[in-house]
């Protein structure tokens, strides 16, 4: 009889379904596309990670750190002492201010972990968060998980230019201003990635006017800004998953509380190795050997190369002023995808088709925009160029042969 009871319990519909906070958050572009791109015969320009080795002194620092007993055990929750010290030095120089390593810095599991700690620590139920499209896809689900409402504003392309760069995509000041004033009762938070100084100043002025927190930095914005960064992107070690947030104590305190209640502390040997890497480059800052400048220089060459072969293949690229990615407009290819019947935006279908038929992987740009902006962005795909020459050679070859069956 006991056995029968257990069997019945298993058949009965359990009342245990998902919690409200994760409602509708199960779709994820990375989970969808990484496995498709993992096929070794596919040239992967999709997910943003280098296939170039990180600097050897960084790898060595990790091997060294792991050989010290203490480095294999728990360290300080808000950040390993040598790492927060190195961060306060490097960023102290960048910001030209004293940064308190213990109160104004938090080390997290990747830049991602910092975004999460910031959202959970500073965003309340009912708040609105302004996000500029296109945006790194996690911002919206994180805002929603914090119980807040994302308010989206797209970058718009200036018309009539022959060669388009990312500088030709701009924020309409009136449109942006309107996003601030619609619900004056609520505090609003602005989320942005690197923009030009004039634009940042415009954003800053709006933030100050509407008493809004901001997730980017500019002189005069220290008290209301959390700046988020990544060891993975800084040192080409995305698999280390270490990042940090820097900001004023009265805000950082809340991020630290989140950390205490979610992860508690980050891995010690990885933090020690990043500290060494930062120390090494701090001394070289401003010099050509500094990895922060040498990597940018190396990538500029790759960027130009990729832009050239895309143009030759008839796909106009949006030349990026920064970062690791390039958007490209696939409209001129006129690819007929009517045989693909899924209810998906054009770029999702295009990328799936391209991976299958051309063995080249990218990421669809509508993954980075809200529903209303999909039509505006669905002819764009995103390509990553922090790849070694042989990978770029392979991509170029695919594009050269595009028209051939």
């Amino acid at each position, binding site marked *: 009889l006991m056995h029968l009871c257990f069997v019945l319990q298993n058949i009965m519909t359990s009342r245990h379904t998902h919690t*409200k906070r994760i409602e509708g958050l199960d779709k*994820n572009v990375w989970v969808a596309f*990484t496995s498709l791109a993992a096929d070794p015969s596919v040239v992967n320009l999709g997910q943003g990670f280098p296939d170039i080795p990180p600097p050897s002194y960084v790898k060595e620092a990790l091997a060294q750190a792991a050989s010290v007993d203490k480095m*294999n055990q728990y360290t300080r929750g808000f950040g390993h002492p040598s790492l927060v010290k190195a961060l306060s030095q490097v960023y102290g120089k960048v910001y030209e201010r004293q940064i308190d390593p213990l109160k104004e810095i938090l080390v997290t599991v990747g830049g991602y972990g910092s975004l999460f700690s910031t959202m959970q620590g500073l965003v309340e139920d009912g708040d609105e968060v302004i996000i500029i499209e296109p945006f790194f896809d996690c911002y919206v689900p994180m805002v929603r998980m*914090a119980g807040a409402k994302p308010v989206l504003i797209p970058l718009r392309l200036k018309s009539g230019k022959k060669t388009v760069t990312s500088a030709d995509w701009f924020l309409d000041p009136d449109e942006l201003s309107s996003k601030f004033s619609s619900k004056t009762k609520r505090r609003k938070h602005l989320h942005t990635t690197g923009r030009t100084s004039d634009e940042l100043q415009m954003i800053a002025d709006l933030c100050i006017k509407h008493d809004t927190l901001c997730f980017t930095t500019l002189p005069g914005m220290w008290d209301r800004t959390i700046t988020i960064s990544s060891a993975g992107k800084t040192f080409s070690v995305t698999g280390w998953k270490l990042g940090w947030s820097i900001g004023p104590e009265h805000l950082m305190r809340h991020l630290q*509380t989140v950390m*205490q209640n979610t992860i508690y502390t*980050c*891995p010690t040997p990885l933090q020690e190795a990043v500290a060494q890497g930062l120390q090494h480059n701090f001394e070289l800052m401003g010099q050509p050997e500094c990895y922060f400048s040498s990597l940018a220089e190396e990538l500029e060459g790759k960027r130009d190369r990729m832009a050239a072969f895309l143009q030759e293949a008839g796909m106009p690229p949006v030349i990026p002023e920064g970062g690791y990615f390039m958007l490209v407009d696939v409209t001129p290819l006129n690819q007929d995808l009517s045989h693909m019947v899924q209810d998906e935006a054009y770029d999702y279908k295009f990328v799936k088709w391209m991976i299958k038929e051309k063995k080249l992987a990218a990421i669809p740009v509508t993954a980075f925009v809200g529903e209303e902006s999909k039509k505006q962005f669905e002819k764009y795909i995103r390509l990553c160029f922090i790849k070694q020459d042989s990978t770029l050679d392979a991509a170029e070859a695919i594009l050269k042969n595009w028209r051939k069956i």
Partner: protein
Amino acid sequence: MSRQLQARRTAWLEFTQLAADHRAVNLGQGFPDFSPPTFIQEALREALSGGYQMHQYTRVFGHPPLVRILAKFFGRIVGREIDPFEDVLVTAGAYQALFCAFQALIEEGDEVILVEPFFDCYQPMVELAGGKTVHVSLRPSQKVEGSGVPSSGDWVLSPEELASKFNPRTKAIVINTPNNPLGKVYKTEELQVIADLCVRHDVLCISDEVYEWLTYDGNKHVKIASLPGMWERTVTIGSAGKTFSATGWKLGWAISSVHNMKNLKIIHLGSVYQCPTATQEAVARGFEREYELFGTPESYFQQLPAMLHQKREKLASCLGAAGLQPVMPEGGYFMIADISSVKVDLSDQSTEDEPKDFTFVKWLTKEKGLATMPVSTFYSPEHRREFSQYVRFCFVKEDSTLNAAEDILRKWSQTQ
């Protein structure tokens, strides 16, 4: 979120600082001061010199070699096929696994039963998820006079009291076996009582088993997920840090049936995204080695508890000589000791309303240079007063540390 939440664990920060300030022999914090085993350090070195992929992103829900070996390893133990891609999630320490479990499964207004004494992070995590904690205490059962050293096995739950905590709002119960701080290793019969209640009331079980390999005196760790009707409703949590004495690697996992795991995965995706690749690779190799050596004398899972067994005995006898009454743990990293008979006047030391164990811990750190943790921090505020006569010692320390502690305790006992 943090508006509602006070900065918790201030007791931890305070006591850790005090220990550092007084350069105390630290038996307070729960981490080894000896090195992880050579094979795991070797595994990390090998992983680091692998191809570029070792330093770049891996699979979001867990590096494939790691989830595969975890599924195989634990599948063999619980006697079922565990799907590495559906049933396993790798997390930033067991801590993050707990966070994902509470966020994924606990809704506003749900009740969660916590068995006291409990690892203190459970309470704020339940509250963060909008849940309400309900407490039930383990209590030392009456021992027959002269029947030997008190054991963590004497601390039991009253089945009636436990049953009374279940009601239609109960969503989950959290158990921790082997237990921190007590060291209790729940027996099959005890887990069966809990399982019966879970099945009858359709309640989930979150089973924190980070110390699963550390059992002494022939006690066996039993996984509640292996009991009939429990696989579908149990989230089992483990830790690479505690398994391989490398707490600083901060890797853990949650294992359950897919309909629970798909929700934990969403929380993970929205909070951490993924864990470091190289350490996952190294832990995978560590488990592959242990899979082959399981049950043999070369297995680290045999050697570590054997080594700790001695350390535990030694510490218990030193504590006894100094007038404390240790409770011999059946498992885990810690031993608690009753301070009621200690001959020291602390009346001038204690600040208003401070529990006795807090005062004692501060005194022991400052005056004797020995750091421990007060056990009342592992209780709900309502029960703190009732259980404020115990302090917790970590014995997972190298001999020199334990010898230094022994010296302090011996000198102190000589002055009494």
